[in-house]
């Protein structure tokens, strides 16, 4: 089922009653989530991503805008009547019930025509358990499970009632690094198998990029960019998005455009056709550097991180806004990087310019 958010807005009254200031958690969010896709809501904490998720679930009421499931306006519908599945950040498994009872719980709430016989409920519960591979743990209590197992139970509980939409709140944040990798693949697989429109929230860009069909980058309640992960990475609309996506993070320099040439410091590093003269921020992806003794951008080399096939050159540059400038280059190309400085030429499609005032993207023609 597709989910449509239209001008969705959530304003919280201020905690401090006297000042009367309001907090806009989500501001004018419009987005159509296609049926059967996996969507990642991504942003730093306090960006309104969880609030958006809770509004879709019905646990929080929007102060403005509308939510549609398919063609149905569900904005006024409370969580009980929406039929969504929600996996909480800390799972919220009922501690006094066994895994089986936890998974059966939503089914036992079905009424009227949807009511199931005991046999059907058990079958559905085991089916869901099998899907997340916990069917051998059905008689345990949540306290007897590891974090990863609890996570699976929570997903099974959300899936068992065959929700129209599956919502996951920071699904991986309580898992250790190894489990995190494994679980995110699992989520991708389960989503593919069930075909349920799934929306998950995360602050970890790597996690979102790796499994989502589409990502939504948010900041302070405002949507920054929506798109397929690779598209957003390759073509960020503003400095925030460019900085938020990618590991190692993008390198940002102070620069200036003069006569359609981009200057970093005194060096003209790139031709930027069609850009008016102005001071800019220059974002260069780590993979956008080509070591070249003749290259125009010269940095002071401070270290080399060997990563196998590639190496990461750690350098400094006085115009850089980051403490270090990090480039990822071919190991062979870096062999002669043993001097005090290293010079680069740049890949134009890995270089982004941003207006210094608005931090919005300034486009130039890439030849």
């Amino acid at each position: 089922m597709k989910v449509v958010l239209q001008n969705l807005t959530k304003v919280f009254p201020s905690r401090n009653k006297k000042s009367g200031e309001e907090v806009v958690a989500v501001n004018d969010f419009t987005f159509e989530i296609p049926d059967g896709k996996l969507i990642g809501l991504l942003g730093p904490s306090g960006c309104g991503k969880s609030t958006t998720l809770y509004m879709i679930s019905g646990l929080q009421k929007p102060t403005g805008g509308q939510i549609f499931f398919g063609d149905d306006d569900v904005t006024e519908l409370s969580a009980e009547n929406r039929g969504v599945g929600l996996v909480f950040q800390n799972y919220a498994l009922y501690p006094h019930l066994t895994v089986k009872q936890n998974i059966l719980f939503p089914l036992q709430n079905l009424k009227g025509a949807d009511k199931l016989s005991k046999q059907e409920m058990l079958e559905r519960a085991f089916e869901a358990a099998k899907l997340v591979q916990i069917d051998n743990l059905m008689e345990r209590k949540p306290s007897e499970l590891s974090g990863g197992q609890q996570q699976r139970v929570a997903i099974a509980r959300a899936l068992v009632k065959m929700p129209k939409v599956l919502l996951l709140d920071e699904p991986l944040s309580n898992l250790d690094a190894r489990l995190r990798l494994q679980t995110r693949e699992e989520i991708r697989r389960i989503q593919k198998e069930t075909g349920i429109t799934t929306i998950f929230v995360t602050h970890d860009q790597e996690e979102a990029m790796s499994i989502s069909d589409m990502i939504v980058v948010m900041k302070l309640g405002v949507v920054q960019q929506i798109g397929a992960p690779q598209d957003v990475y390759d073509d960020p609309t503003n400095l925030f998005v460019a900085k938020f996506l990618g590991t190692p993070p993008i390198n940002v320099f102070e620069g200036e455009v003069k006569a359609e040439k981009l200057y970093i410091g005194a060096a003209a590093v790139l031709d930027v056709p069609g850009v008016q003269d102005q001071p800019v921020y220059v974002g260069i992806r780590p993979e956008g550097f080509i070591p070249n003794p003749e290259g125009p951008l010269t940095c002071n080399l401070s270290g080399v991180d060997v990563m196998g096939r590639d190496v990461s050159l750690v350098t400094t540059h006085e115009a850089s806004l980051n403490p270090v400038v990090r480039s990822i280059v071919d190991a062979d190309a870096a062999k002669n990087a043993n001097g005090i400085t290293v010079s680069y030429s740049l890949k134009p499609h890995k270089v982004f310019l941003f207006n210094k005032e608005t931090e919005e993207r300034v486009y130039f023609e890439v030849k």
Partner: protein
Amino acid sequence: MVESKHKWKAWLYLAPAIVLLLIFTVWPIINTLRIAFLDGYNMLGEVGGETYSFGIKNFTDVLDEYSGFKEALVNTLLLTVLTVPLSTFLALLIAVCLNSIKPLQRFLQTVFFLPYVTNSIAIGMVFEAMFNIIGLSPDAVTAESWGIINNILGLFGADPVNWINLNSSYWANMTVMVIYIVWNALPFKILILLGGLQSINKQYYDAAKVDSTPRARVFTKITVPLLSPMLAYVVITGFIGGFKEYSSIVGIFGDDMKAVGTDHSLNTMVGYIYDALGSNEGRASAAALILFVIIFVVTMINLYVSKKKTHY
């Protein structure tokens, strides 16, 4: 931990407490046990040089038909069995309701805690006044004023009841005591249960909501099980308190522990023990031991049941 050179110093700090405890806590345990088994022991008698033989006469005396212990036991049991479930249920209901409202929550919470900080004798006298009938005719047909409770009941069309006055019935007296004891027991139970409710993770309720769980099911399948340790605590302390009921009855009916002109005693086990003091300490001790055993057994049963029933 730092090794103190002067280990005797710790005992210096403890000395005042230990001296007092030896006299007023340790010795009583030994002595009460001793005199419970000295037949017909009497304090003045012992001072006068009388000696008593070892035996169980005190216990047989206590259990004797005429000593009034059986009445006291029945009264105490009835009061406990009636008031504990009633007050626990009401407190649970109030706590759950309080927990699900927003405006006025703090205010109402304060109001419900009010009876805790009261003098049970003093407010017992207020209950006495509220149930009291003024100028009741000997045939119990007319009265000057039927009292505020009867007046309020009259608004709902009920006939006036002779609650506590001359010739009032045992069950009328009992009802008044139950009402007062429940009223008195509510604040503590509400405080504990509300605290328990507020410590339940809100997400369980959100999860239940997303899964379209009906209210009643949320209550029976989530709230009550997660609250069960608190409920057990409230019930156990309720039983212990119930078996030691005394001063609230004094508050309503006075030292005599009975309504004027009636034959039935409203005495409780604790009242029985105090009555025996000053004349028959041996019997008082025997009764106190019996009370202790009853409380101990009931508490153990409670703990056993709650261990089976409470989760985690």
